[in-house]
């Protein structure tokens, strides 16, 4: 170590900088913004907000019929929908803030929202 010319101060700086770098990793990676609520936009109805911390089933009416949303363990999925392609149901569980899924034939859009408010908007 002495041959490289390192001093005790260098070690101090190295530890401090490494700590700060580690914190930056934790800050960006750790809280990945799991959603707390989901915003449901039915075609012509008003926007509903669903809390994701309580397991429940929700029925949303649309032009084709009734879409059922299931909330469990902080995640949401389209349990059933009267559409023919079933894209919404095949999407599986949504849990990340910013995740969006829609049943277009039934005019229903669900958007998971990051209530921490870290980001004003997400552009896809």
């Amino acid at each position, binding site marked *: 170590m002495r041959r490289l*010319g390192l*001093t005790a*101060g260098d070690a101090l*700086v190295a530890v401090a*900088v*490494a700590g*700060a*770098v580690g914190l930056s990793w934790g800050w960006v*990676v750790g809280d990945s913004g799991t959603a707390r609520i989901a915003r449901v936009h039915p075609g012509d109805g008003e926007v509903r907000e669903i809390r994701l911390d309580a397991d429940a089933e929700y029925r949303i009416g649309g032009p084709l019929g009734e879409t059922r949303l299931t909330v469990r363990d902080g995640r949401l999925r389209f349990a059933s929908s009267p559409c023919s392609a079933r894209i919404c149901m095949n999407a599986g569980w949504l849990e990340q803030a910013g995740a969006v899924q829609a049943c277009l034939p039934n005019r229903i859009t669900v958007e998971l929202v990051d209530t921490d408010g*870290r980001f004003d908007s997400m552009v896809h």
Partner: protein
Amino acid sequence: MGASTAWSTEPGPPRGPDAEAADRRLAGLAALAVTIHLLEAAVPSPVPGLKPGLANVVTLVVLLRWGIAAAVWVSALRVVAGSLFIGSFLTPTFFLSASGAAASAAVLAAVYPLVGGRLSAVGYGLLAAQAHIAAQFLVAYTLFLPHPAILALLPVLATAALVTGATGGILANMILAKLSLSPMDPGERPEGGASPTSAGRDRR
């Protein structure tokens, strides 16, 4: 006497050979830094803005051998001349580069008088590298890409700065050790802050 113009057209007092030699040395060091900068620019990098930062080794050596003013000169000349050669002068790349260089120079200028020889080039290199990427990130986020996704790059850049700052500092220490074994050339002023190789210098 009593000239109305702000700039004098009279030749000033002759600057001694020492000052001339110091200027030539600064120019030579800046040219060295620019050359390294150009070579690095030719190498593609996986992450935008990520470079080995070897030109900063020159800045660190100059700082610990010839003082903060010389280091700032070399750093500034490297950014301007390098961008002129590459053709990126006054482009966004230039502003990113310049902000990084300015921030690292500011940190060095702030820390060096306080700490002096208690840090070797490794400590200064670590601090300067973090200041460099922090400023670049701020400029990129504020002026060019105000998108939350760019935040994900920060830890990556910070980790890279940790590595390049340390390795650059180690290289600078090795170079300083070699330099201290050669006699001081004329016009070289012994800088106030001690360097880790000052013991080597006294050995002459």
